[in-house]
C-alpha cells in the first residue's frame, strides 16, 4: 500500500474525528456524573447532620444539662453519631450513608445555656442548650477519582444546629 494514500484516504474519517472529540466527551460525561454525585453526597451529608441535630434536639433537657454543666450520657452522644452517620439506631454496624464516613468524622457539641431562658425554658430556670451536629472532613467517595478527573482527597463538611427541646 502506498503510504501517501493513507493521507488522502477519506474512509474512517468519522472514526478519526471521534477519536478527537472523545476526550472532551468523556470529560463532559464523567465530569457531569461526578459533579452530580458530589452534590448528591453533599445533600446526603446535609440531611444526615440535620437528622442528627433534630434527634439531639429531642433529648430530655434535664438529662443533657444540669445547672449549666453538661451531664449527658456518652451513650447518647454515640447514638446521635450513629443516627447521623447511618440514619438509624438499631444496628451499630450498619454501613454509613456515605461510604467511608467514620464516627470520628461526626462531632456533637452541646452548649448548655446556649439558647434562651424564656418561653418553655422559664420553667427550667436556666437557658436551654443548643446542639450542633457536624460532619467534619468526610472524604468524598469519588466515582472516578482513579481517572484523575476529580480530586480524590476532597473533604466535605456540613453542620446543623438545633435547640434542645425535649420530646
Amino acid at each position, binding site marked *: 500500500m502506498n503510504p501517501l494514500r493513507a493521507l488522502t484516504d477519506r474512509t474512517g*474519517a468519522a472514526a478519526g474525528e471521534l477519536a478527537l472529540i472523545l476526550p472532551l466527551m468523556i470529560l463532559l460525561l464523567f465530569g457531569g456524573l461526578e459533579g452530580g454525585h458530589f452534590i448528591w453526597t453533599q445533600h446526603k451529608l446535609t440531611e444526615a447532620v440535620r437528622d442528627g441535630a433534630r434527634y439531639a434536639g429531642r433529648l430530655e433537657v434535664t438529662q443533657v444539662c444540669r445547672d449549666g454543666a453538661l451531664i449527658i450520657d456518652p451513650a447518647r452522644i454515640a447514638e446521635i453519631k450513629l443516627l447521623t452517620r447511618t440514619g438509624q439506631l438499631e444496628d451499630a454496624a450498619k454501613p454509613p450513608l456515605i461510604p467511608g464516613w467514620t464516627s470520628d468524622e461526626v462531632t456533637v457539641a452541646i452548649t448548655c445555656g446556649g439558647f434562651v431562658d*424564656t418561653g418553655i425554658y422559664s*420553667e427550667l430556670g436556666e437557658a436551654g442548650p443548643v446542639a450542633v451536629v457536624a460532619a467534619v472532613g468526610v472524604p468524598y467517595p469519588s466515582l472516578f477519582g482513579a481517572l484523575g478527573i476529580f480530586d480524590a482527597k476532597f473533604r466535605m463538611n456540613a453542620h*446543623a444546629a438545633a435547640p434542645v427541646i425535649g420530646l
Partner: protein
Amino acid sequence: MAPGLRHLARDQGGNVSPLYALVLMVLIALAGIGFDYGRMVAMQSELQNAVDQAALAAATQLDGHEDAMIRARAAAVNTFATATSEFANITRIANDDGGRTVSGLNFTFYESYADDAPGAEVTSDADGGNAHVVEVTTTGRQVFYALTPVIGAISSGGMRASAMAMLKKAGCNVPSIMVCVDRSDFPLPAEEGKGLRMRWKSSKDVTPLAPGNWGFLDIEGVRDSQYEMGENAAPRCFNLENLTTEPGFRNTEPDALNTRFDMPTNKLQCQDNGDFCPSENTRKNYAVAFTGTVISPKSTLTIADVRAALTCPAKLPAGKQTWVPFSSIGVIDRTASDSFTLDNCFFTNTCTYLGDGTWDIDRYLAGHHPGVLASSFTKGSRYEVYQWEKANKAARLGPELVGFNPDSRPRLSGTNYRHSITYHCSYSTPQFSSPVIPSDTQKDRRVLTVGAAKCEGISGRKQVELLGWMDVFLLDPSDPADPGTIRAEVIGPALRPDNLSGFQYFGKDRAVLIR
C-alpha cells in the same frame, strides 16, 4: 463561486466537527442541568433545615405571654440565623451575595392551626399572647449555575423554604387536679412556704370559679377513677389541648385523699404501686381511743394527770381501731396537739386562698417538740419541719397522749378517785399500712402535684388554660365537716420524684413542626 469554495461546500470530509460544536452546547447544558439541579435541591434542603430549626426555636417561646412574638423572633434569629452566632445554620451551596448564614428570616404568627390550615394571623406584637403557631420563611437565596449558562440560564432565582411550628401541650405523670390562681405567672419559686387553701365549689353553686377553687380536669381518654386524690401519679402522658374543667364533686375523693394520712378504708387499701398508701409522717388531728384507769386525789383530771398515769402503746395493738377526730375528744389541748395549721392570715381573714407564709411555728414546736426553736429551721416552712420530723421518726414522731374523755362519775375510794376514762393517742407514723418511702420514682405521699390554672370567671364545663404544675404539701386530711377543702402549703414548681427540675416532665410543651 470560486472553485475552492465550491469544493468546500461539497466536501463531506470533517462534517462531524461542526456538528459536534453545535451539539457540544446541548451536551454541556444537559450535564449542567443535572449538576445544577442537584445544587438547587441541596440548597433547598439546607434552607429547609435552617427554617425548621428556626421555627422550632421560635415555637418554644409561644407560651401565651404578651411578649411571645418578640421573644420568638429574637430566640430564633439571635441563636440560629445570625452570622456571628456559633450556632447559625448555614448554606454552603448558595453562591449569591447573601453570605453563608441563612439569615433574613421572615416570621408570620397565627392564632391556631386546624384542618391543615393556619387560623387568623396575629399581626401586632402586642397580641403575642394569641400567637400559637409560627411560620418561618427564608428570604430568597440563589444558586448561580455552573454549566447551564451556556444556554442562557444564569441563576435559580430566589428559592425559599418555609416551616411552620407550634407548641403542643401535654400533661404527664400528674393527677388531673387543678387549682385556680389569680396570676398568670404562677407558679413561682417565691411562693414557697405559703399556705394554700383550696376549696371545692359545690355543684349547686353556680357562681364562676374564683382563685383558690380546685377541681378536676377532664382529660381525654383517661378514665375518671373517682379516687384520683389517693392515687399515685401514673406514668402516662395525655393531650392538654382544649382542656376543660370537670364539674361535679365526688364524695369518694376525700376518702382517697385521706389514705395519704394512714386512714385507709375497706375499699381503699395500700396498693403495691403506691396508690392509697400513707406517707412516713402522718401527723394529723386524729387519735386512737384506749380505755384506762387513773387513780388520783383530784375529782377532775387534767391532761397532765392522765399523761402521768397512762402511756400510749408504742405501736397500735392489733384489733379494730378507728381514728377519732380531735374535735370529738372531751378534754384536749388543741394548741399543743394540733397538726400543721394554715397561715395566720387565714384565721384573721386577711387572705383569701394564698397565705403569706407566716404560720404559728412556735406553737407547733412548743406542742410537739419542746425545746426546739423556730430559728433552727432555715426556711421555717411546714414542709421543712415535716422533713425534719421524718429524719428521726423515733424521737420526733412518737405517739402522743393528746386528750381524754373524762369519767362523768369518778368513784371515790378512800382519799382517791378512781377515773375510768377513754384516753386518746395520736400516731404520727403509719399504723394501718406500711408507709411509702419517697424514692427516685416515688414522690412523697403528702406532696401532691396540682395544675395551676387560669380559670377565674368560668363556670361549668369550660375550657381552661393551665399555667404550670406545682407541688403542694398536704397539711391535714380532709375535714368531714368541710370535705371539699384541701389545706396545703406551696412547695414550688413541681419537681420530679428524684427532685430534679420538672421541666418537660409534668407539663410537656413540645415544639413540633406542622409543615
